[in-house]
């Protein structure tokens, strides 16, 4: 799919005006902006000692030091491993399943929490199915993953408040989020130009469908709302060890494969990830409406940071699934492509 698009010659973002545009040399505005700020990048502030200082700053006086969001993917499983083994914290692992998690991912989580001997909360619900179906049936451009992440974060903050946990640990990579936009400080990356149109579509869907559906009267209107509510409810920071550690995924995949019996799933998009079944639908719609996905954004960032090559990203982002798979997944939602 990517081959038919004009993509940035440095990263993998396609032209998508007005948010992403290429200059005469074929380089996108996001890469140009990055070059301008590269010199005073946060290299020094992203050292592990900065992270360990923060762990002390958010020291818990309760039962758990931190709540680790674990999906069973490589990044979150590695985060779980580091928090337990490297930082020796007492943790509560938490997995959210909207009913579309893969068996492989759940097996990974189970193995990890068993081997590490950590307390574990598994929350499964089909609460959002109606919302997912509505996105498909109304041809909304809202990206399923964005709505899901709003609910997932909301739940996570609620659990942290319930157990008095001062720190939430996520497995976000350097490509997924930036340290400055610590979620506890009410910032999130939805304001980046790469996400601008997608965020508008999500907001439109939330304002129209979700707000007017009594079933979802408690559903937050945006990620900002989640953060504001969380701040009022319970003081809690969100951090990822991957922002501070120099190890890339090659290193920690090898580690968790060995230590936690972690496995790559048979079926997932992009290649070398562990994402849920619904992710295929999300990716399909994202490509259809915007020409790229949040994975393109993430991998482009990793390319800029020198952690991934453009060729690797293009290969990983190749669409290798078909309509039959999509229809199998959406059976539950009573929708056919």
């Amino acid at each position, binding site marked *: 799919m990517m081959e038919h698009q004009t993509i940035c010659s440095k990263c993998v973002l396609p032209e998508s005006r007005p948010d992403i545009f290429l200059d005469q040399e074929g380089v996108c505005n996001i890469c140009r902006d990055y070059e301008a700020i590269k010199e005073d990048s946060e290299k*020094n502030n992203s*050292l*592990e*000692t900065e992270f*360990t*200082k923060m762990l*002390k700053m958010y020291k818990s006086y309760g039962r758990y030091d931190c709540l680790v969001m674990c999906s069973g993917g490589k990044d979150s499983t590695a985060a779980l491993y580091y928090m337990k083994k*490297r*930082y*020796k914290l007492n943790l509560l692992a938490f997995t959210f399943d909207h009913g579309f998690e893969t068996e492989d991912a759940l097996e990974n989580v189970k193995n990890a929490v068993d081997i590490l001997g950590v307390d574990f909360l598994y929350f499964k619900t089909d609460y959002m199915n109606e919302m997912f179906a509505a996105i498909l049936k109304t041809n909304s451009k809202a990206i399923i993953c964005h709505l899901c992440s709003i609910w997932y974060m909301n739940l996570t903050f609620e659990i942290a408040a319930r157990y008095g946990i001062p720190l939430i640990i996520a497995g976000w990579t350097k490509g997924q989020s930036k340290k400055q936009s610590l979620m506890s400080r009410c910032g999130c990356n939805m304001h980046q130009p790469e996400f601008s149109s997608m965020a508008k579509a999500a907001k439109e869907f939330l304002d129209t469908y979700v707000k007017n559906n009594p079933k979802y009267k408690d559903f937050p209107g945006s990620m900002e709302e989640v953060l504001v509510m969380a701040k009022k409810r319970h003081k809690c920071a969100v951090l990822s060890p991957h922002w501070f*550690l*120099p190890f*890339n995924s*090659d*290193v920690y995949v090898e580690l968790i494969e060995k230590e936690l019996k972690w496995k790559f799933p048979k079926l997932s998009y992009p290649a070398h990830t562990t994402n849920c079944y619904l992710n295929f639908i999300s990716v399909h719609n994202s490509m259809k409406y915007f020409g790229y996905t949040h994975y393109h954004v993430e991998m482009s960032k990793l*390319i800029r940071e*020198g*952690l*991934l*090559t*453009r*060729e*690797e990203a293009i290969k990983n982002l190749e669409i290798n699934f078909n309509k039959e798979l999509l229809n199998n997944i959406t059976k539950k939602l009573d929708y056919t492509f």
Partner: protein
Amino acid sequence: MNILGISCFYHDSAVCMLQDGKIIAAASEERFNRQKNSPVFPLNAVNFCIQKANLTIDDLDYIGFYEKPFLKLYRVLLSHLRAYPFSFKNFLDTIPNWLEERLILPLLLKKELGYEGKVLFIKHHLSHAASAFLVSPFEEAAIITADGVGEWGTMSLGVGMGKDIKVFKEMHFPNSLGLLYTAVTTYLGLEALIGEGKIMGLAGYGKPCYLNKFREMVTVKQDGSFMIDQRFFGFNKGSRMYSHRLIKVLGKDRKPQDKIEQRHCDIAASLQKFTEDILIIVANNLYNDSKIDKLCLAGGLFLNCVANSRILENTPFKEVFIQPAAGDSGGALGVASYIYHSILNNNRSYVMQDAYLGPDFSQNQMKRSLLNNGINFKEFNDDSLFRYVAQRLSQNKIIGWFQGRMEFGPRALGNRSILANPANPAMKDLLNQRVKKREPFRPYAPAVLEEKITEFFNAKQFSPFMLLSAEVNKDKKTIIPAVTHIDGSARVQSVSKKINPRLWRLIKEFENITGIPVILNTSFNLNREPIVCAPEEAVSCFKRSQMDCLVLGNYIAEK
């Protein structure tokens, strides 16, 4: 037992991680923050060292600091006071730094690292002595340390036995051979901390005809102790380290842009000879006092490989050990070793056989650096890699050679090196013109197969850290002209198959092609930049220079 040694705040900040007496990692901050001779608190190097040991800051049992800040401040304040009012500007420049960070190190460690554990301080020259002896192969040895100045000490003499070090003589500021060398370096228009090594090179072009002038300025006693006539110098007075009186004696001082004249070479040669003579007297006296024929040297002065060899040649000492980070960066290693062995009373079992203690990078990371910079490259297996690179060397190509873990200390010892053909008489100029942009009087160094060292050099012992010089054998001078200095000497690195098998194999292949078991080895950097650390920096260096070929692990890129 995990001990982190730190040296910083003056120049060459560095960190060393010692685990159960073994050095796990050591690196200078300049390689990470890319500021040459960086004096800042080594935050990046600390993070690298603890991560290499698979630890976090909370796993450390001790942090050791390489000198005693209060003692040093006492000296600084007193010498400012003595030199008042000329020292007032220096006073204003330096004292705020002391009050902000140097005096309150435990607080700084908490602020910067979140570390709240035990912190120990040992004296500057004891750190040097420990860095030289405690990781040496000797059970007992005489020890000499010498540099600009520590707290008060400028030179110390002692003996190491087992895990103990006894320092029994010390020279004190302002009588410092190191400061004398630096003062004359600046008089000759070169920069302090960078220029001293260049003076050593320049000395080869001169005759020591100013030796008597130095003897007039510095009174040397029979035991090698000396007194510098401070009327000729101004170590703490203002913007320069020498006075008008020195100019009266040696002639007009050279400005950096001035042409180098024969007079300058002669002054450099005289300074070098004067320094060597004092060190020889000191070493002979130390031998007479200790009757031990093994010698350990440390301190910035012993980065002077010519002086080191003269000591070996002119004293009864049979063997000398100088660890690769002989300057202040080695203080980090010294304090960590001293805490483990001498304070905590643990036996010695580790010998520092190599300097490869810095970061390494996977083949994937190297490949990504090349791909992300749009550089075409080929992957080779080991056999074909060494053969191919040796061929390119024999064809007079300049090679950037990036392998394994980065070296600790100022010398590139074959893991972050630029390599070239030593047999080409034009190679030195070619390398200067196309890559290094160095002063023409500075020589390039040879790396030789350890087993062939005496075939080419009149060496008394192996020189794995490039800290000894040796006369090139008469019949070989024309064979390796690019690494033979004007005075017929060379700053040799002997390469052992066991310690650096990849460099050894490359030289062996070069020998198979040319019959010469020697290659030219210089540091992988451009002028005034620190040596490269990561593949990205190697690629950047390759792109910005006229290097012909870049070898990153098993990948080769060519222009």
